[in-house]
């Protein structure tokens, strides 16, 4: 890129793409430290059991075994998310098959695994609770007998096997349904989806002579890992340091987990570095899934298509530990209205404990479940009304200035434009030839989402040759945030990107960032980078004004690291001259930091009744729409997605090619959710889909050859460069659009994910 090219809106190759293409990029399992031990985890064979004893003597006596830890060694408080209910190893009870029970560090992996086999754990099996109905049944066995005593991060609580309850309501739903001419209702079911990042979770924990632990970790936030490990080891955060490796995909599944603490504990005990990288099967068994959900939903409209009321009950299956269940439930409820101006809405929900893998955050965070139900039902409503599904959506779509569910003003809204763009693009495309034995259908879905949440910061520093060092805590998990942050900073200083360095995230050195999550990096951290860059420019202008003996307001940036006097081409100073003056003559080294917490409006308690929500505010709203064409095989019920058009508002596309990559990749991950992906447990609570052979993620032949991203840019007024997030919305629309296309092709409504051939055939059979 030449000095004159603007960095924002261009699509330069990713900064780290060369390292990734040549195998140089270092992921967690690529880290080697001299003297490194290998860890292995013993997991529970029971879904629900009391632990009554451990025998580790034989394992401890084995040559090469350097440290062993069991739940009996843990005495500190419980850790976790809003409900502090977890320990890094099961303590007292096991609550899912695969739960870590003990861990070993040994000189090689073979010895570590042999030592695991020599550890004996005595269990008294308890009745497992494997589904929502079993968990809520009167007299059901309790997973957490001490739930009431657990620390909670916010006000509120659950009870019995209920992790959390929440509710939101606006208007008068009962009265409004009485005014409706058409009412549709139905119950929808969604499954557990696994993140299936290609790189499993893992880390290397090193320890120095003073006992300080440094983790090299594949993760979505070094600060979150640092905090969780410090909590579980009972150490101050000053003695725990987390440094991000390259991250081979995250999607919500690489937030801090028990395994980081286990590795750190073993390193501290052995006084040696320890590598703990999960096998694919253990990653499936002991990490996280997307929440299975059961959603009852009822929507009513007037004969003219005006939607008046919606009532929703959502129960999500949180698995054995609360993790992100309260916020996922909250967000599912907030998204249950969809991007529509429905005046009377009530959404109530529960998250329950079951004896399965914990469910947690996963791209979309409750919205894929809510939108599958809501957008499927919108098409059913259109059928009942005799209306075109796009027309019904357009008639009810939010417009700028409307309020989101909960009362937050939404100044920037292109819900209608997104729908029109995908409809027109599909209409104008040359039709694919029909195929015998297959029925063709076209389906639509509208989506809303947010980008925001919590705190972040960025620091910009000037180096002595006029180069700039940019620091943030935002971990690039593959989506391209490293490049985007540098583009924003370089653009703000009219520098070529090669003159901006960007440091790998290190909890001891990087400004705080909550997480790479919630479609928030470009909006939140990008906004911090933009403002810090503006502050750096102002500081440099103050030096330049003194060097040139002029007023700062008369200065301008010139490409390539030059500050000049506006209208006087010959009068200028370089960033280098400014840097040298600041370092050696006046003012001191130049640095600018900007940090903030999402500062947009919160929910409005005067408008909506709000009970036990896990957030006070969310973020800025974004909108999108998907259109898909599918072929349904008459004989087998198999669904093939032929083409897709996905329109999304990104505020401003910092890197359009990366935006397209997020849209195409999110769509295919959503298509896997829609059609093939399902984690399944047997009656004993064993996960029977713990390999890539049993858990089917889409390959290239399963994926449509055409996924057309349509990028809309409606700049957000609160972001200096106008950007919003795109990470999650691209997944959310896929399943309902495909469901609606199946309905269009066959007349049959499939109300459960994944929409397997068996389910599609069964739904068609109900029509006969």
């Amino acid at each position, binding site marked *: 890129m030449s000095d004159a090219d603007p960095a924002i809106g261009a699509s330069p190759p990713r900064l780290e793409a060369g390292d*990734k*293409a040549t195998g140089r990029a270092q992921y967690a*399992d*690529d880290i080697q430290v001299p003297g490194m031990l290998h860890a292995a985890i013993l997991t529970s064979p029971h879904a629900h059991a009391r632990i009554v004893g451990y025998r580790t003597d034989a394992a401890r006596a084995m040559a090469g075994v350097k440290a062993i830890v069991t739940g009996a060694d843990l005495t500190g408080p419980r850790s976790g998310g809003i409900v502090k209910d977890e320990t890094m190893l099961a303590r007292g009870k096991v609550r899912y098959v695969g739960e870590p029970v003990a861990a070993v560090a040994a000189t090689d992996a073979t010895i570590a695994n042999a030592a695991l086999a020599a550890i004996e754990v005595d269990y008294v099996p308890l009745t497992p609770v494997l589904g929502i109905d079993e968990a809520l049944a009167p007299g059901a066995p309790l997973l957490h007998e001490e739930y009431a005593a657990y620390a909670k991060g916010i006000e509120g609580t659950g009870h019995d096997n209920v992790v959390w309850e929440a509710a939101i309501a606006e208007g008068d739903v009962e009265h409004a349904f009485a005014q409706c001419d058409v009412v549709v209702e139905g119950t929808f079911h969604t499954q557990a989806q696994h993140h299936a990042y*290609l790189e499993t979770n893992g880390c290397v924990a090193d320890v120095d002579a003073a006992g300080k632990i440094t983790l090299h970790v594949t993760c979505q936030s070094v600060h979150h890992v640092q905090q969780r490990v410090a909590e579980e080891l009972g150490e101050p955060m000053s003695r725990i340091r987390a440094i991000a490796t390259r991250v081979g995909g995250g999607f919500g599944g690489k937030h801090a987990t028990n395994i980081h603490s286990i590795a750190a504990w073993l390193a501290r005990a052995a006084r040696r570095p320890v590598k703990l990288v999960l096998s694919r099967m253990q990653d499936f068994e002991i990490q996280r899934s997307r929440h299975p959900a059961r959603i009852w939903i009822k929507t009513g409209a007037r004969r003219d298509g005006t939607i008046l009321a919606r009532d929703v009950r959502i129960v999500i299956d949180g698995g054995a530990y609360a993790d992100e269940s309260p916020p996922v439930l909250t967000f599912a409820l907030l998204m249950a209205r969809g991007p529509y101006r429905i005046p009377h809405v009530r959404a109530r929900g529960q998250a329950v404990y079951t004896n399965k893998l914990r469910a947690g955050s996963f791209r979309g965070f409750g919205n894929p479940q809510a939108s599958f139900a809501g957008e499927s039902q919108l098409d059913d409503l259109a059928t009942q009304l005799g209306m075109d599904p796009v027309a019904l959506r357009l008639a009810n779509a939010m417009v700028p200035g409307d309020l989101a569910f909960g009362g937050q003003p939404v100044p920037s809204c292109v819900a209608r434009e997104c729908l029109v763009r995908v409809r027109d693009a599909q209409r104008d495309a040359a039709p694919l030839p029909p195929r015998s034995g297959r029925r063709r259908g076209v389906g639509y879905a509208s989506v809303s989402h947010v980008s925001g949440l919590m705190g972040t910061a960025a620091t910009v520093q000037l180096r002595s040759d006029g180069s700039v060092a940019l620091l943030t805590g935002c971990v690039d998990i593959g989506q391209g945030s490293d490049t985007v942050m540098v583009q924003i900073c370089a653009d703000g200083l009219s520098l070529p990107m090669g003159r901006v360095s960007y440091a790998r995230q290190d909890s001891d050195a990087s400004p705080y960032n909550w997480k790479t999550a919630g479609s928030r990096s470009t909006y939140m951290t990008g906004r911090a980078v933009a403002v810090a860059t503006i502050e750096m420019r102002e500081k440099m202008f103050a030096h330049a004004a003194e060097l040139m003996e002029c007023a700062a307001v008369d200065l301008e940036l010139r490409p390539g690291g030059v500050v000049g006097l506006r209208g006087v081409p010959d009068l200028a100073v370089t960033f280098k001259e400014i840097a040298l003056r600041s370092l050696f003559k006046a003012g001191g080294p130049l640095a600018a930091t900007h940090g903030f917490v999402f500062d947009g409006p919160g929910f409005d308690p005067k408008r909506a009744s709000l009970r036990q929500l896990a957030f006070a505010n969310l973020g800025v709203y974004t909108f999108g729409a998907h259109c898909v064409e599918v072929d349904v095989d008459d004989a087998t019920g198999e669904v093939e997605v032929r083409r897709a058009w996905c329109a999304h508002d990104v505020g401003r596309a910092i890197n359009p*090619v990366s935006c397209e990559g997020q849209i195409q990749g*999110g769509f295919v991950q959503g298509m896997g959710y829609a059609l093939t992906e399902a984690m399944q447990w047997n009656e004993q609570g064993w996960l029977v889909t713990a390999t890539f052979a049993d858990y089917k993620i889409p390959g290239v*032949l399963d994926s449509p*050859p055409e996924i057309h991203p349509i990028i809309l840019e409606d700049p957000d007024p609160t972001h200096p460069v106008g950007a919003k997030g795109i990470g999650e919305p691209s997944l959310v629309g896929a399943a309902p659009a495909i469901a609606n296309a199946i309905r269009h092709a066959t007349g049959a409504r499939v109300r459960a994910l994944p929409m397997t051939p068996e389910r599609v055939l069964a739904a068609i059979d109900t029509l006969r």
Partner: protein
Amino acid sequence: MKLHSVLTINDEAREVLAPGAASLLDVLRDSLALTGTKRGCNHGVCGACTVLLDGRVARSCLTLAADVGARAVTTIEGVAGVDAYSRVQRALIDAGAIQCGFCTPGFVLAITDLLTRNPHPGSEAIREALSGQLCRCSGYIKIVQAVEHLAGGTHE
């Protein structure tokens, strides 16, 4: 029992002492520190461990090191020669086809094999040749486009 053998890896003779049951992937990553070859599933489904044996794709996780014999092994570290990038690597970088990057080495080798056998594959041949490689980030569109570009334009 340890196995002592000499493997030809990226045109160099490498002496290896490894357990008899070691896979080629174990040897590359653990004995030779050639960590560009990735362990994604360790049972032959995901393709992240793809290498070339005498120029043809092979799953290094399913290949016993003891069975490699005299066949030439090419890993991601060996595809670029003296240049910074091979044309396949360059095309993936330029197309924006690399996201998290964990699957990328396997794709580079699978594409290299394809273009050696068939310099001008059509879209269907490209998709068929890449069907053993999983990517969770990209939706495959930009990867296929990068290969179409190398193959000399879009084919129907």
